[in-house]
C-alpha cells in the first residue's frame, strides 16, 4: 500500500502566458497505450481559439520588436529549460508506448531543434534578404518581416518534437502562434507550455490549445485576424484541403502545408522560416 496518494496533474491550456481552462468546460479523455485514461484534456472551443488569437495578436508586435539576438537567446533559453526537465518529458512520452530510448531521443532532438533555430534568429534576414542594385539613384533593400499571427496544427505523431518543430520556425521570425496540440496525445504540449512559461518567452507569443482538429479547423483557417495557417499532415484528404483553402480565401491567408512523414529525423529547414515571412522592400533616395 502506498504511503501517499500521488498528486495527479491537471492539464489546462496555455493562452496569453496564462493557463486557463477551456471556457466551454468540456474535456476529453486522453488514453495511454493500453487504452487506460491517463488524463483529461481541455476540449477547446472556437471561443478559446478566438481568445488565443487576441492574445497572439497582442503579443506579436512586441515579440517582433525584440532584437533578433534577443529572440535567439530566448529560444536558446527554452532549450536550456527543456534540457533541465528532460526526464519529465521522457516519462511523459512513455505512456504513449514510446520506448524509453526513443523518448529520450525525441526530447534530445527537440532540444537540438530549438538550438538550431535559435541560431537562425539573427541570420535568416541576411541569407534571405537582399540589397537590390536598382538603376535609379536609390538605396534599395529587401528584408523579411513576420507575416503576423499564425495558427497551426501540431502533428499527431511525435507529440513533443512535432509540436516544437512546428512552433519554432514560426516564432523565430517574430510571429506569434496559436497551436492545436496533438489530439491523441496533448499532454507533452501542455508540459512544454510550462517550459515556455519559465523561459522568458513573452506571454501570447505561443498559445497552445488542446481539442479536436475537426471541430476547430474551420475557425483556425477562417479567422480574419490570422495571417497564416501551418500544418504538416503527411496525407491530406482533398475535401479537407479544399475547406482549408476556401477559408483562407476570406482574407488571403497564407496556407503552409509542409508534409512530414517521420519526425524522428531532423526536419529543420531555414526555408520553412521564410514561409512565415513577408519580404518588405524599402526605397530611399541617395543624394547630398
Amino acid at each position, binding site marked *: 500500500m502506498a504511503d501517499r496518494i500521488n498528486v495527479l496533474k491537471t492539464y489546462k491550456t496555455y493562452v496569453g502566458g496564462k493557463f486557463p481552462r477551456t471556457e466551454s468546460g468540456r474535456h476529453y479523455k486522453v488514453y495511454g497505450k493500453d487504452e487506460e485514461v491517463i488524463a483529461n484534456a481541455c476540449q477547446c472551443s472556437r471561443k478559446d481559439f478566438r481568445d488565443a488569437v487576441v492574445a497572439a495578436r497582442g503579443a506579436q508586435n512586441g515579440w517582433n520588436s525584440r532584437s533578433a539576438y534577443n529572440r535567439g537567446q530566448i529560444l536558446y533559453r527554452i532549450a536550456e529549460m527543456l534540457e533541465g526537465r528532460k526526464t519529465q518529458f521522457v516519462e511523459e512520452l512513455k505512456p504513449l508506448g514510446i520506448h524509453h530510448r526513443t523518448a529520450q531521443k525525441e526530447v534530445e532532438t527537440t532540444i537540438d531543434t530549438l538550438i538550431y533555430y535559435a541560431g537562425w534568429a539573427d541570420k535568416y534576414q541576411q*541569407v534571405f534578404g*537582399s540589397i*537590390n*542594385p*536598382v*538603376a*535609379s539613384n*536609390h538605396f*534599395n533593400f*529587401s528584408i523579411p*518581416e513576420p*507575416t*503576423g499571427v499564425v495558427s497551426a496544427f501540431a502533428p499527431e505523431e511525435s507529440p513533443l518534437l512535432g509540436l516544437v518543430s512546428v512552433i519554432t520556425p514560426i516564432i523565430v521570425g517574430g510571429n506569434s502562434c496559436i497551436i492545436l496540440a496533438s489530439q491523441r496525445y496533448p499532454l507533452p504540449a501542455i508540459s512544454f507550455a510550462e517550459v515556455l512559461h519559465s523561459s522568458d518567452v513573452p506571454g501570447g507569443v505561443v498559445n497552445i490549445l488542446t481539442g479536436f482538429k475537426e471541430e476547430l479547423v474551420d475557425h483556425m483557417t477562417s479567422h480574419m485576424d490570422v*495571417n497564416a495557417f501551418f500544418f504538416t499532415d503527411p496525407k491530406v484528404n*482533398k*475535401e479537407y*484541403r*479544399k*475547406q*482549408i*483553402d*476556401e477559408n*483562407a*480565401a*476570406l*482574407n*488571403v491567408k*497564407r496556407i503552409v502545408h509542409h508534409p512530414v512523414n517521420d519526425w524522428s529525423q531532423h526536419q529543420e529547414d531555414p*526555408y520553412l522560416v521564410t514561409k512565415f515571412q*513577408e*519580404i*518588405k*522592400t*524599402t*526605397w*530611399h*533616395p541617395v543624394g547630398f
Partner: protein
Amino acid sequence: MADKEQTTDLQEKPFKPSSPSSKLDLNGFWEYADAPQSADFIELADQYELFIDGKFTKPASGNYFDTINPATEKPIAKIAEADEKDINKAVKAARKAYENTWSKISARERGKYIFRLARLIQERAREFAIIESMDGGKPIRESRDVDIPLAAAHFFYYAGWADKLNYAFPNKEVESLGVAGQIIPWNFPLLMLAWKIAPALATGNTVVLKPAETTSLTALKFAELCRDAGLPDGVVNIVTGAGETGAAIVNHDGIDKIAFTGSTEVGKIIMKSLAGSEKKYTLELGGKGPNIIFEDAPVDQAVEGIINAIFFNQGHVCCAGSRLLVQEGIANRVIQKLRDRMETLIVGDPLDKNTDIGAINSKQQFEKINEYLEIGVNEGADIHQSSCSIPENGYFCRPTLFTNVGQSNRIVKEEIFGPVLTIQTFRTAEEGIEKANNTPYGLAGGVWTDKGSKIFKTGQKIRSGVVWSNTYNQFDPTSPFGGYKESGMGREGGLHGLEPYVKLK
C-alpha cells in the same frame, strides 16, 4: 482657364489666379501647343488571333471582341476570345514545349533566348509605347519612359538568372514547375507581361498568359517578338479573353502554377477556385496605399511624390498612394501646394507628349470612379478637382482630392483605382502609423521625413511589401514587389521573384 486670344503679349497682366484656392496663375498665357506622338508607322491588323504553339490561331468558338481606344471610344481591332478548348490547346502546347524542348535545352541557352526578347522589345520600344497608349489610355510619356523600358529591363534582368539559379537558393536543388498560367491586368499591360513571363522562362517553365480584355494588343505584339526571337513553339502562349477565359486557365488541370495580378476580389475567387488543388499560386492584388508626410519632410519634393503616388497612370496603380496622411502642422501648406501642382497637370490625349493624365482605361472603370466620386460627396467629404479642361469624348477624369474624410469613409477604405486622393491629418507618429495600417491591404506605402531614424522606424511599422521613403512609385526589375495581408502573396521582381516559379529540394 487661359485666354487663347493672348499670344505673345508680354505686358504685365492683372493678377489672375488659376482657381479660387490658388494664388498662382498656373494656366496663364503661355500654353503648350499640341505635341502629338506620330503614330503613322504603327501597323495594326483589323483582327488578332490567339498565339498558341508558335502560331496565330483562330479561336475555337470563332468569337471576337472589340478592343477600344478609351481616349476616343472607337474600336481599334478585333481580338479573339479563347474558350476552354483553346485554353486546353494552349496548355497542351505549353506542356509539350516544356517536356520536349524548354526543359531539355541548357539553362545558358534558355537565358540567351530571354536576352533576345529583351533586345527585341528595346528595338521596337516606340511602337510598343504607342500601342500601349492607344489601347490602354496611358500617357505616351509614361509608356515611353516607364512601361516599355522597364519591361525590357525585366527580361534583361531575369535572362541572366537562367543559369545561376543555384546561387539564388543556397543549399537547395532548384527545379522548374512546368506550365505556368498567368493572368495580368490592364494597368501596365506589357510591363505586367514582363513581370510574369521573364521569371517563368528564366526558371525553365513554359507559359500560357492571358492579358486583360481591354489591353490585349501589346501582348499579341509580344507574341510576334517571340516568333522573331526564334523561341521554340509553345514556350509562350498568349490567349486573349475576359474573365471566363481566365477561369479556364485557373481551373485547368494541366497547369502547375497560377500567377495572377488584379483585384483582391478576383484574387479571392481564384484562391477559392484553386482550393484543394496542388497548383502553386502567387497573387498580386489591390491596395490602398498610405502616404505619410511628416512635418519635417522635404515639402516640395513630398508634394511631387504625392502627385506621382496618386496620379501616375491615372491612378490605375495597385500600389498607388491613395491615402494621404499629413501631419497637422503642415497640412494646410501641403494641401495648398498640392492644389497648385494639380493645376499644372495636363489631362487629355494619351498620345500627346505633354499629357500627364491620359484616359481612364475603360467605360466600366470610368463609371466606377465616377460612382466613388459621388459616394465621397454623399459621405460628406469635401471634393476638390483641378480646373483643367477635359476632352469631350473618351473617358477622362479630373485629378481629384477629398478632404474632411475619416477612416470609416468608403473612399478611404476601398480601392478606387483612379486619380482620386483622400487626405487625412494626424498628430503623432503613432497615430499616423495606426491610420496607415488600419486596412486589410498591405501593398505599398510612403514615408516622407528628412530624419533618417524616423524613416526607418516608420518604414518598419508600416505593414506593406513596399515602402517608399522620400519617393514614391519607383520600380526596378531587381527590386522585389508584392503585398502583405490582402494585397497578395509572393513577390515579383528581384531575387525573390524567382521563388514562385521553382520547386526546391
